[in-house]
């Protein structure tokens, strides 16, 4: 994600928040009000996530990932998040660090464990989602 995309996403959320606030002034129906409040929470959560990524120094510009280190499957398996080792996973031949990724509690994620090539599992669940661009790249898989 580059700076312009980040700025556009924050602005889009702020515009939605302003529209929702305008609507809140107009409604007296509690059902509608709850819907609008939920919408506000969603926008705030979006902005918080974007800021969190920024503060964590997650790679805002991943156009030149660090792919100098080359992993074999056997080497990758050592980085399983246990016994002092960081948690790495490979997707589409790129190796990412998920050690402190919130969704990887205990170095596991929806029954998956770190230290493996998860290309198939990733494409089955997260295809098209801009998740990988937020992760730190630590190398690439051997050809």
């Amino acid at each position, binding site marked *: 994600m580059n700076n312009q995309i980040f700025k556009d996403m924050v602005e889009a959320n702020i515009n939605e928040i302003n529209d929702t606030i305008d609507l809140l002034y107009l409604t007296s129906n509690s059902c509608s009000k709850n*819907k609008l*409040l939920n919408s506000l929470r969603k926008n705030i959560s979006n902005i918080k996530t974007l800021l969190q990524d920024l503060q964590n120094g997650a790679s805002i510009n991943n156009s030149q990932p660090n792919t100098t280190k080359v992993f074999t499957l056997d080497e990758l398996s050592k980085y399983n998040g*246990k*016994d*002092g*080792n960081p948690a790495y996973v490979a997707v589409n031949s790129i190796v990412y660090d998920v050690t402190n990724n919130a969704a990887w*509690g*205990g170095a596991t994620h929806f*029954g998956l464990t770190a230290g493996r090539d998860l290309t198939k599992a990733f494409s089955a669940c997260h295809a098209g989602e801009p998740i990988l661009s937020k992760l730190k790249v630590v190398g690439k898989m051997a050809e």
Partner: protein
Amino acid sequence: MNQANINCPNFSLKLETASVLVNKVIDGINRNTMKKRKLVWLELTGCSGNIISLLDGANPDFKSLAAQMVNFIYENSLMVAEGEAAMKKLFSVIGDDYILAVEGAVSTKDDGMHQIIGRWKGQPVTALRAITELGENASHVIAVGTCASDGGISAAKPNPSECVGIQKLLKKKVIKLPGCPCHPDWFMGTLAYIMLCGEPELDDRQRPLMFYSTLIHDICPRRPYFDKGIFASKLGEKTCMFKLGCRGPVTRVDCPLRKWNDGVNWPIGDDSPCIGCAMFGFPDKMEPFISYDTT
């Protein structure tokens, strides 16, 4: 949760959602502007934990629901009728207007013969038959709890009775309230909303946004510890349990705010990691529930 969050009107309003909706329904019924709807609650292949949880509801409580809000037609743990008389009541609603709440998954092996909920006209009534006949005829179907929503514990590996969530057996949309068990507010608020306005706004997995819009991690009182990288290394420590395998970051529901047992506490408040019981794929995809020696 820190003091600033407690005072946020958005949070306090969220806590009032279920009671406001239920009181509006009761008020409408008392003023004769609304009618009580018939409610059928089926306990299928599960542990009956959701009906027990509902009985533990407070503000709104179960009495408000049963006495003032709906005509409770069938609930096998609570009703007086038994045997064929109970089954007669159950099937009497077909052709009439009713809302169906279902807890438990549905056993499909051997044509459903691993889960018999009663006998009707001399024949065993399987959970499979009950859900297909009563589900398609209901005005709305609510899956109460994780097993009804997604198979849950009843469908956990190796799933010998071939249990499935109820959506897999019904063509119509099922409103899903996952959680093991379902919080009383989630059910009563959803039911009241249906009676007032029809189907509530749902996410892409058919969960009502009014209860399931927030990740636990985003409103967790221990979130500041996560942000600062202060992690518990064993159970009992008061810091972030992410390294122990907490599933709060992937579980979307409002437990940190609403809490349980009349707002007394919730798992993380008692130093236990979230095990993701309200998330699809629970329990198999949420295991291991606890991890040690992680980095």
